[in-house]
Each structure stands twice: as structure tokens, then as C-alpha cells.
């Protein structure tokens, strides 16, 4: 399989290790065809997105709330005709330590962790380092975490994707010292 970036390490987990997906599903490469970290509004990224299907194209850009400014009434009216079973979208807040603004992203747009992480990296202009099952993220000061339904702060990537999407209430990209002590799970 093509090695595209750090996140494809996740894809190459052996059968005995915890997989990021339901048992029996095949992990496919999710990242784009180029090695380049896609920048927002990069024209080449647009080309990739418009040619391939989502599974093989670069990760979908995070949808900003209320943009483009089309009323939900109009969006829904046109969507029913497209016959897509896109639901309401699952918007969660994303904050990053040190950044003065919050963002909201729609989790239903992504199908797996690498897509989400790439999107977050683009949005906040940082990189997350490498994920290891036991030690967490290494190689960067930033650690992506999320708050689950029980109010616990978890490391992104610890649980299967579907479980993450259904239990995630909000995301927080933590920095530096706060991260120590945050293991996997409760």
C-alpha cells in the first residue's frame, strides 16, 4: 500500500492489534493522491476532490457552520431531490489551546480518523504527530482529545470510529503539559 503520510501507520495495524474500524471491514487508504499536505483553498486540492470519490480523494474540507449562506429551508429542499440520505449533520465544537476562536465541524462528513485529523490540522494549522496505541500521540506538542457523553476527556483514536462519532460531544486540541496523564479510556 502507498505510504502517504503518518496516518497510514494506523491503516497498517496487524490483526491482533486494536483496529480503527468494525471487525471485518477493510481499511483503505483515505488520504489524497499527493504527499502534499493540502492547504485550504489550494486549487490542486479542488481538482483532486472533484475527480475522485471521497474514499480515495483528499479528505473533505471541514464544513463551516452557516457557510455558504444558504438558508436551511433551501438546503433541505434541494437535498431531498438529490436523494442523499444526509442527515442533519453532527456538529461539534472544536477548540485549540491558545487559539482565540472556536470552530464547529460536522463529524458525519468524515468516514475515519485520518480524514478528521487532516481536516483539523488544516483548520488550525498544526500537526499532531504519530499515534501509538499505548503511548498516545508522539512527536508534537498538540494532542487531539474529545469529550464523550459521560463527560470524560478521551484521546481521539482510542475507540472505533463509529463509537467515537456517536459519543463525541466536543473536541479539544490540547497543548503540552496538560496532556500528561491522559491515557486511553477512562
Amino acid at each position, binding site marked *: 500500500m502507498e505510504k502517504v503520510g503518518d496516518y497510514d501507520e494506523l491503516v497498517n495495524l496487524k490483526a491482533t492489534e486494536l483496529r480503527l474500524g468494525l471487525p471485518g471491514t477493510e481499511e483503505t487508504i483515505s488520504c489524497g493522491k499527493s504527499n502534499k499536505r493540502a492547504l*485550504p*483553498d489550494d486549487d490542486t486540492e*479542488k481538482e483532486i*476532490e*472533484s475527480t475522485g470519490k471521497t474514499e480515495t480523494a483528499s479528505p*473533505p*474540507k471541514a*464544513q*463551516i*457552520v*452557516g*457557510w*455558504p*449562506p*444558504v*438558508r*436551511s*429551508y*433551501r*438546503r433541505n*429542499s*434541494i437535498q431531498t*431531490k438529490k436523494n442523499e440520505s444526509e442527515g442533519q449533520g453532527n456538529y461539534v*465544537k472544536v*477548540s*485549540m*489551546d*491558545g*487559539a*482565540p*476562536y*472556536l470552530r*464547529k465541524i460536522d463529524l458525519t462528513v468524515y468516514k475515519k480518523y485520518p480524514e478528521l485529523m487532516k481536516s483539523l490540522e488544516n483548520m488550525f494549522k498544526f500537526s499532531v504527530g504519530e499515534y501509538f496505541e499505548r503511548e498516545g500521540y508522539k512527536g508534537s506538542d498538540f494532542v487531539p482529545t474529545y469529550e464523550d457523553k459521560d463527560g470524560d476527556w478521551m484521546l481521539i483514536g482510542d475507540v472505533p470510529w463509529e463509537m467515537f462519532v456517536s459519543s463525541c460531544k466536543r473536541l*479539544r486540541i490540547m497543548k503540552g503539559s496538560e496532556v500528561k496523564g491522559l491515557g486511553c479510556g477512562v
Partner: protein
Amino acid sequence: MTEEEEDSSAKMSEDVKRYLKLDTRSSAAATSEPPCSSSSSASALANNKSRNFKSFEPPCPDHVLENVLENVLQFLTSRCDRNAVSLVCRSWWRVEAQTRFEVFIGNCYSLSPLRLTHRFTRVRSLVLKGKPRFADFNLMPRNWGAQFAPWVAATAKAYPWLEKVHLKRMFVTDDDLALLAESFPGFKELTLVCCEGFGTSGIAVVANKCRQLKVLDLLESEVTDDEVDWLSCFPASETHLESLSFDCVESPINFKALEELVVRSPFLKKLRTNRFVSLEVLHRLMVRAPQLTSLGTGSFSPENVLQGEQEPDYAAAFRACKSISCLSGFRDLTPEYLPAISPVCANLTSLNFSYANISPDMLKPIIRNCHNIRVFWALDSICDEGLQAVAATCKELRELRVFPFDPREDSEGPISGVGLQAISEGCRKLESILYFCQRMTNGAVTAMSENCPQLTVFRLCIMGRHRPDHVTGKPMDVGFGAIVKNCKKLTRLAVSGLLTDEAFSYIGEYGKLIRTLSVAFAGNSDRALRYVLEGCPKLQKLEIRDSPFGDVGLRSGMHRYCNMRFVWLSSCVLSRGGCREVAHALPNVVVEVFGSDDDDDDDTVTGDYVETLYLYRSLDGPRKDAPKFVTIL
């Protein structure tokens, strides 16, 4: 009293004397009747006059003056003129207040219902607007406010003769509608635009109880399906209905009831049906109402596909409706049936295809005949080619709106500057444009600024954030600069694409008539905001999101906020301290601060950070119905 008022009352005294004499004579003649108040006061006055003239305060000079003024002011309908009149003196203020029948309130929180009913005593028509426009894009939590309830309660007591209510972005409940229907026996017109909070049961009460109802227009509102057959609730007798619009009602309707309603509504001119109305049902309605001028065609798709002669002759139905000038609907268009509208094309002044996925080839044969179109709404599925066809035929076009079929930031976007330029060259009388696209050039925008000098509304939405001119790679500053410079009548502007502070310097320098400005993902610094706030004297509504404007920029508008309807700043770089500063400096301005969720809690990261600032002037101080997640500084 001023000198002028004293003079005029001295001059009036001759008239007063004559007035008084007439009254006393008439009251003397009618001895069996108890003296009416005016003559008894007149006689009392006559007696007092000789004894103590100096303490005599005649109410009558004002009455005479006011009677005259009343007769004159009834011809004044413009609210700007009336506002000016009311400032002349107290007497004129009073008479104007008594003769104002139509009241417009642009922000429901700018005053209390009590103030309205105290000042204006004879209101027959009320226009009320609630939430700011960015609430339409999920930037405001639900339950923020703008409830109609206190207004309907106050007007129910004060204006029993109220005839018309027009609400935009208000929260209206079924109870509110029921109270309305019960309180105003002469009620004629209800228009709800972008409202929510009510359902078909509320509509049913209005339909049933408002016996004089002429207009029931539900436009882009959220109407819950209470599974009530509201169409059957109209009275069984002939109705006064002239306009019935329910295209936003997302629930099935009783077709038979609708048909019967149409039959007993001889004055019906506008009928806008929802997407549950198939072609067959539409056909039956058209046959029964050939006098229609405006038709919302529902789904424009047949329920059953019949072959040959069994199928209704849709084109004939359109031919029979000779007065149709406005067409909309097409919610689920089956393309083969589109040509049926051809008979009415030549007379159309307004055509709304914005819910139909219409390709250039589908559009061209239709638009070719629409020489009289003034308003055209469509999806970008018509492509640049379709826009060129519009430009070739629609020389009378005044308003164009092109919406995205795929309203996502990274969608393909089939229209561009090519279409915009074509429109500008073909439709020289254009006044208003809303254009969603993914690719644009300064050249095309500049061309429009030069070709369409009548533009009053220019709203361009380049959907990808921070997109530059896709040919030169430069910011879109020059294009928007040309718009504000060349379109001297411009009152409304929405900008997008990659924009630096320079664009805003142009807006401040040339945008002297701009009343509404919408900004998103634009500018470099506070200077941009300062240019606008210092340069645009007519600015009333300013809505900004996701732009790098902070406390310094906010401060630069202090001198303006009392003269504006509102300012909205979300996801910028404001701090609580900065917002508080404005709140303290301007007691007549309400400063609201809130997040985008109603469950916002303390967050160490965002403690001082202000997600959304919404400020507006108010005569009656901060509102008392603010929910927990709103902080009023």
C-alpha cells in the same frame, strides 16, 4: 410654548370665538337633550372668558389645527415623511401619532409593545421584524427570542380594528395565532416570513376565525405538521381570499378541500401551493381559477404517468390562465412537462426556478420567450450558458438571484464571471443581484459595475473562503471597489472572496448610500472596520462573521451605533472588555454577547473570548426575556 405657538394661538382666538358661538347656539336650540360635552365646556368657557381670560387654556385652537392637520396627514404614507412631520412640534407629533395607521418596526427589541400602543392609537397595520439575518444560517441558538407573544397581547387590547400583520424572523406560537384570530374581527392580512414556532393547528384557527381574511402568506417559514386539515377550516361560504401561499408547509394537504376553497374564492389572484401538490391537482386548480395572476406550481410532477389522451392537457390549462405573470414552485420538476408553461411565458414578469435542477438545454426554449421578465431566480444548474440565454432575451430584468445547487464550500460550481459578465451586458436595467459561485474575476465584477448603473443591491457570494480572482490570483478588492464607485445608487452590499483592508477603504470612500453591509471571512485588520464605520453615513445594518476585527475596530464606530438598527459580529476577535466598553459608553444601545450553542459553559480557553456580539439601539433598555446563554453587558 414657543413664540410661534403663542402667535398661532392668538390668531386662532378669532376662530375659537366663532367655534364657541356656534356651539352655544346649537346647544341652546336642543333643550330636551342633555348638553354634550363640547357645548357644555363651550358655555363654561364663554362664561369664564369674561371673568378670567388670562387663565383660560383653550383646547380648541389645537383641535382646529389638529383637525386640519389630520386631514392633510392622511395623505402621507411614507414612514420617513411621517417621522419628519412628528418632529415639528408637540402638536404635530400628537396628530401624526393619531393618523399613523401603518407602523413599521425593524427590530422588535428597539422598543416595548407598551411604547407602541401608547404613542400610536389607531394602528391598522403592523410590520415587525425580529431576529437578525445571520440567524438564518444557524449562527444563533434557538430560543434566542423575538417572540410575537407580547406584541399580540398588547395590540389585542389596543387595536381591535387591526387588519394587517406582517412578521419576519419572529417566533410565533399557535396560541399567538389563536389570540390574533380572536382579537381582530376585521383582520385581513397575515404574512409570516422566515418565522417559526407554530404549526398547522395555528393556521387552522386563523383560517376559521378570520372571516375577512384576504391574505394568508406563509413564506419560507417552518411550520410543524400537527396533522390538522387546515384547508377544511376555512368558512364554508364565499371567502375574501386574494392571496394564499403555503409553499413552505412541509405536510400533505387535503386536495379536495383546496379545490373547493378555490372555487368559492372568486377574488383569488395568488395561489402558491406546496410540493405535495402534483401536476394533476394543479391542473384541476388552474381550471377552476383561470383568473390567477401568481401561481406556485407545487411539485410540477405527475402523480401517475398516463399515456396519451388520458393525460390532462397542461398547456391548455396554462393557456386559459391569461393573467398569470408570476410563476414559482417546480419543487420536484419532471423535465418533460416544463414546456407546458410556454403559453404564459410572454406575459411573465417573475419566474422562480430556484428549486428546480434545470439545465441550460431545458432553460433555453423557455427563457427565449420571456421578454418581459423582471425577476428571475434560478439554480446554478443553468450554467453560464443559461445565463447567456437570459442575457440575450430578458432586457427588462431588474432582479436576478442564482442559488447553488450544491451549497457546499468545496462544490464544483458551474457558473462564474462569464455568466455575470453576460448578464451585465444583456440586462442593463438590472437593479438587484444575488450570485453564488466558485470562480469569479475582478474583470467580470468591474464590467457589471460599468454596465449596470441602476444597481441598488449587489450580493456576490464566492463560496470557497478567501478565494482570489481565479485568473489573476489577486484579491477581489478592485472588483468590489468598482461596484461601490460606479453604482451610485447602491444601498445593499455583500462581499466575499479574498479581500484585504483595501476593499473596505473603497467601501468607506464611495459607499455613501449603503444601508446594509454583509461581510464574511474578509479583511486584514481593524482598519477595515474603521473605514466602513467612519465612511458610510447611511449604514444601518452591519453583519460580519469570521473576520479579524477586534475591540479597536468596534470602538471606532461608537459615534454611529445609536443611529444604526444593529451590528452583528461573530467569530471575530472581540473581547468581553471591549464589548463592555461600548455598553457603558452608550446607554441607549443594548449589547448582547452569546455563543452559538445554548449550552455554552465556562471554558478556560474561551473565557474572555466573545463568539457573537449583537448590538442594537433601544428606547426601553435591555430586554427582560433574554435566555440564560445571552449576556447583556
